[in-house]
């Protein structure tokens, strides 16, 4: 017996703020269509991909090779010839492209008005520090991340904010609302975890690396209103938007600064908390240890670092790892696959953290459950709601505490 369908949240429930793009009746209907399409793809079409693997692709693979698939790459090469996988993939790719088109058409028709609103909040603010000398790293320039034309950094007009506005408008659609009204379920989860697992921890200074539109650092700035927060990104477009967005949400203790994670403009031992959210998979093999060494350098002894990512592949069933790899190959996430192979414990240890300091836990987006469906963990039978691999806001949170200074 199938369970009753869960109502899809509407874009009308997205939290509004001063620089949030306004949508017409039909634009809302278009976003809602895409949200429903994404839910349908994950609940009704995606289960068939596993079924195709189990009932025809894997048996054929075993018959041909006399053994099961050794890894996710063998699964992928076999599945690429399966019609159902091809259909699900092309539909999922199209839904991403259509979401970008829909978001951009909303933003660019009202860009002048949006920019005026951002200008009013940004002009002369000491908390927005842009540096035209910052170059976009190769891993940001290579392809437009998750099929977002111009990625986070393309500047189309002077004092551009379009990339941020488009990203903000569409996050709800891509994740079917599972990140919450302000797409901040990740930041809220970190704040809640700290309250539960580090009671009494009151960071004086917080750093967020690769903040984009600041959606995950705002909840931390709200949870620690006395803290000085610094949020860095290499892209000026998203920083202008992030700054105006935070101000209009009444959050004034964040300094948004254009800087690279490889060269954090801060003194050694100057932050008590360093965070990232869905950041590492958009870097590179060279950048990851460089940035983690900076995390260690700027973290004060006794300070905590915490990072949200999709789960690592080690020990994972090859089919599930293949499914989680979809975005790497088909949604312009070229470092995703290698990042999820990395030994994170070793990365942190080689960056300076003490052996054994590494910890890892599972976190779910913290959202308003009266409006939004809960995220799903693991697979499930066709009667249950399916996890949308790589999109579900159920994360691996990893990090470490920096050892207190030796006597």
């Amino acid at each position, binding site marked *: 017996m199938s369970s009753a369908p869960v109502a899809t949240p509407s874009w009308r429930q997205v939290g509004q703020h001063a620089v949030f793009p306004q949508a017409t009746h039909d634009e809302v*209907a*278009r976003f809602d269509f895409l949200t429903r399409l994404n839910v349908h793809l994950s609940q009704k079409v995606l289960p068939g991909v596993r079924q195709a693997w189990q009932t025809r692709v894997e048996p054929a693979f075993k018959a041909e090779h006399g053994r099961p698939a050794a890894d996710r790459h063998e699964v992928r090469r076999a599945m690429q010839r399966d019609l159902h996988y091809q259909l699900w993939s092309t539909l999922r790719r199209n839904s991403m492209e259509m979401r970008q088109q829909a978001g951009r058409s909303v933003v660019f028709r009202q*860009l002048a008005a949006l920019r005026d609103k951002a200008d009013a909040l940004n002009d002369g603010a000491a908390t927005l520090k842009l540096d035209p000398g910052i170059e976009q790293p190769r891993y940001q320039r290579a*392809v437009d991340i998750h099929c977002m*034309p111009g990625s986070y950094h393309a500047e*189309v*007009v002077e004092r551009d904010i379009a990339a941020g506005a488009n990203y903000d408008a569409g996050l709800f659609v891509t994740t079917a609302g599972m990140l919450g009204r302000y797409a901040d379920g990740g930041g809220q989860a970190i704040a809640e975890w700290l309250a539960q697992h580090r009671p009494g921890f009151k960071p004086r200074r917080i750093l967020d690396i690769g903040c984009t539109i600041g959606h995950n650092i705002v909840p931390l700035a709200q949870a620690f209103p006395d803290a000085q927060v610094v949020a860095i990104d290499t892209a000026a477009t998203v920083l202008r938007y992030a700054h105006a967005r935070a101000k209009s949400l009444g959050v004034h203790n964040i300094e948004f600064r254009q800087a690279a994670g490889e060269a954090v403009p801060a003194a050694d031992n100057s932050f008590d908390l360093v965070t990232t959210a869905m950041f590492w998979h958009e870097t590179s093999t060279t950048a990851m240890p460089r940035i983690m060494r900076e995390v260690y350098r700027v973290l004060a002894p006794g300070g905590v670092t915490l990072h949200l990512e999709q789960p690592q592949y080690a020990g994972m069933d090859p089919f599930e790892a293949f499914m989680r790899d979809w975005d790497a190959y088909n949604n312009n996430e070229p470092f995703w696959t290698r990042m999820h192979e990395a030994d994170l414990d070793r990365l942190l240890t080689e960056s300076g953290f003490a052996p054994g300091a590494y910890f890892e836990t599972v976190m779910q987006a913290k959202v308003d459950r009266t409006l939004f469906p809960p995220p799903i963990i693991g697979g499930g039978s066709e009667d249950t709601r399916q996890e949308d691999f790589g999109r579900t806001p159920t994360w691996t949170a990893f990090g470490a505490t920096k050892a207190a200074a030796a006597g």
Partner: protein
Amino acid sequence: MNPPRLPEPAELDPVALANRRAKGKRPQFLDDPALERVLSITLAVAGELSVARERIDTLERLLVQRGVLAAGDIEAFAPDSAALAARDAWGREYIARILRIVEHDVQAMSDAAEPTVEQWMDKLDDHDEPAPP
């Protein structure tokens, strides 16, 4: 040296900007690239139909809310014969319009020996074309 000044929003074409592609070679999923494109177009049209349907739904609800229609009026509506005929005419033309290409295929079958236009290019280059009567 300062970078060149970027345009103002009013100088841009929002439609062209909305349609900009993402950098990064697009993967091919289906075996036939043409089919892949037809699917993309069909999905976009399906989206626009959903948008139009929602607008009609809004209209109906507003008409009920303002007392122009009673709830159930649309379901209870029985077109008279003139309305039925007008709808039928519209409906037949509509189907013919969207399935035009299939009809063209059928029409062409009855003229199987039809030369291609390229063959006509050569034929019309004949120097021994008979003079018109």
